[in-house]
């Protein structure tokens, strides 16, 4: 009666065996759940230096104690592994309904080891679990897989988290998709699943998710609901979806265009959230217990699907020089069906576009080529033709042709939709992210563009290292709880602490919550250091340090690494190389 389901599954795919063990109290106390569970277990179980696509890698699915409790936006689960794209430890977050179903099935986490000799899927069924044959599912898209499993089990209440053909073919940025369109997107975790011949995890159950203090939690739920509903920020998400960001980012002259060669796109309005709302939007959609409903269901030309979110909208759009909203939406649908990271796939295409235009690669694709772009997405997912090379990610591709500087990536993971030359703090977050190019681990766009929780000058570096650390630590702890990160526009650390205390019965306060987040962050960092990642890798592509922006307000700006990195390491309690000191590790209970 603490919000947890109480048990974890250990699935040894080599032996074809499943064991069920109680969720350890110490793990709950020190790591909460979700990303905390995933990172702790992963770094305990996997020796640094293993090949990520070998059977020695481990995948951990983990929900949080707040997942599925009916708390508004308490729907999330995390998947952690060693990334085949970056080589770092990675953890991706997804919403929808699957996380709730996993807990209703009776499980806080699923730890997957080894490799099955033939395609299989896991079925979590009301306190039990089994390994089932998936030969008939291999080759199917994520949508076909989901429908086939539900039909096979004869139960429409089953929910499925699976890979598509891209994961099967070990595309380095293949992802995991649940409910056909929700993604644990970054880091290539889908490829790790594919390397284990694991096609899917299906879950069903009706086990109650019980909390420590039902009455107290009711009161806090109401307070949290009110804060979210009355916060003006969340309304825009409901009305326009995440693509509402297109125009504000573009008007700030930081919308990366044509592989980050510039940062303002003339026809941004054509692909904006406002245009989605008046053209292809059928209705909003939300995850389990969501009162914001930022998801988009679209319909046009007889087709329907979900999305596009801001990131793929930008990546298939301005980053590829494309302003055709329907084409962008179709491309995103292909990513959902194939199970492809819808940031890395288009960003890799954009890299090819620049290289082709400059004559570094002999290929007819150019920026703005809609048909060419759509063909390339499928080629990547099928690993056909040049798609086989692109499937290795933009860095490996560009490096193969002797122009690695064309890959807009950090630690080989493609950068998302904000130009760091106009956002010093967000640029620092990109450079220091423990999973490579990433925008969610520390969303400094919030203060630097949106003005939440307060307005920070995006061109200034002063004070940004502390902000980045705070965001990284808070986000890590939120990812451990099972709450959606979008709650952080309305809620603060006290709210999350109160929710946890009432749910788990273990007293939590903001200081402890942030400490747990810091512990998770340092654990990820320590592991990466053992893999050889150091100060040198905490940087951005040379373009951002040496080529100033040329348009609008941020004209002349570059990203100022030297003004922030040392201070960031200092506020983190790390040495000048970015290694956590003994004192910091003791403080966090990591020695």
């Amino acid at each position, binding site marked *: 009666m603490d919000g947890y389901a109480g048990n974890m599954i250990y699935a040894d795919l080599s032996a074809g065996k499943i064991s069920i063990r109680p969720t350890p109290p110490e793990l709950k106390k020190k790591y909460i759940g979700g990303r905390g569970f995933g990172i702790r277990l992963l770094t305990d179980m996997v020796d640094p230096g293993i090949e990520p696509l070998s059977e020695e890698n481990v995948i951990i699915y983990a929900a949080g104690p707040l997942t599925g409790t009916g708390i508004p936006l308490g729907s999330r689960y995390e998947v952690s592994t060693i990334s085949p794209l970056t080589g770092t430890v990675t953890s991706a977050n997804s919403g929808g309904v699957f996380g709730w179903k996993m807990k209703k099935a009776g499980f806080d986490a699923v730890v997957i080891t080894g490799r099955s000799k033939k395609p299989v899927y896991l079925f979590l069924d009301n306190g039990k679990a089994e390994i089932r044959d998936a030969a008939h599912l291999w080759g199917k898209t994520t949508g076909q897989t989901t429908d086939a499993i539900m039909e096979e089990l004869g139960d429409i209440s089953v929910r499925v988290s699976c890979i598509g053909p891209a994961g099967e073919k070990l595309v380095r940025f293949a992802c995991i998709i649940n409910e056909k369109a929700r993604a644990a997107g970054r880091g290539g975790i889908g490829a790790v699943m594919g390397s284990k011949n694991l096609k899917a995890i299906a879950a069903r159950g009706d086990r109650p998710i019980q909390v420590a203090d039902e009455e107290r939690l009711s009161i806090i739920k109401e307070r949290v609901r009110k804060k979210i509903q009355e916060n003006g920020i969340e309304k*825009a998400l409901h009305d326009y979806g995440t693509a509402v960001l297109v125009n*504000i980012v573009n008007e700030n002259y930081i919308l990366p265009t044509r592989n980050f060669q510039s940062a303002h796109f003339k026809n941004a309005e054509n692909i904006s959230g406002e245009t989605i709302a008046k053209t292809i939007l059928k209705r909003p959609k939300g995850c389990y217990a969501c009162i914001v409903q930022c998801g988009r269901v679209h319909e046009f030309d007889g087709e329907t699907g979900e999305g596009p979110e801001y990131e793929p909208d930008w990546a298939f759009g301005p980053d590829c020089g494309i302003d055709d909203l329907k084409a962008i939406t179709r491309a995103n649908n292909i990513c959902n069906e194939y199970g492809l990271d819808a940031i890395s796939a288009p960003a890799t295409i954009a890299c090819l576009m620049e290289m082709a235009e400059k004559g570094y690669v002999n290929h007819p694709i150019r920026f703005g080529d809609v048909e060419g772009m759509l063909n390339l997405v499928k080629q990547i997912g099928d690993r056909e033709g040049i798609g086989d090379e692109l499937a290795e990610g933009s860095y490996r591709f560009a490096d193969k042709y002797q122009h690695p500087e064309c890959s807009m990536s950090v630690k080989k993971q493609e950068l998302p939709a904000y130009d760091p030359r106009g956002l010093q703090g967000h640029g620092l977050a990109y450079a220091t992210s423990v999973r490579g190019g990433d925008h969610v681990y520390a969303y400094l766009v919030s203060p630097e563009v949106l003005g939440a929780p307060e307005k920070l000058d995006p061109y200034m570096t002063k004070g940004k290292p502390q902000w980045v650390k705070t965001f990284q630590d808070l986000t890590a702890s939120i990812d451990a709880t099972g709450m959606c*990160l979008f709650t952080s526009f309305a809620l603060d650390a006290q709210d999350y602490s109160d929710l946890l205390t009432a749910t788990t019965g273990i007293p939590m306060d903001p200081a402890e919550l942030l400490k747990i987040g810091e512990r998770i962050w340092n654990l990820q960092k320590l592991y990466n250091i053992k893999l050889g990642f150091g100060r040198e890798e905490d940087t951005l592509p040379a373009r951002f340090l040496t080529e100033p922006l040329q348009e609008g307000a941020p004209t002349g700006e570059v990203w100022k690494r030297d003004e922030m990195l040392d201070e960031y390491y200092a506020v983190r309690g790390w040495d000048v190389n970015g290694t956590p000191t003994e004192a910091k590790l003791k403080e966090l209970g990591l020695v």
Partner: protein
Amino acid sequence: MDHGKITITVKSFATFRDVMDAKIRMDLPSGSTISSLLDELVNRYPGLSDLIFTSPGILRSYVNILKNGRNIYFLDNLETLVEEGDVITLFPPLAGG
């Protein structure tokens, strides 16, 4: 050129478009500020007032106003001068990721 008058472009986004036009060209007296521009807009589009202000002269939290891509908060806030050819963009509270 009329030295007593300037011409600017004002763009609105998201929920602001429910109460005002998405893009307008406006003539203002030379020496106008963002504050006087907003007064003029509120006169023209009465529904805008509650969306922009919590009380007279106080912008709502998370409303962002840009002058040529620069947030006025980092210029002179509501006293920022509006000049010939400026593009002023108005954003309601927004979130995303």
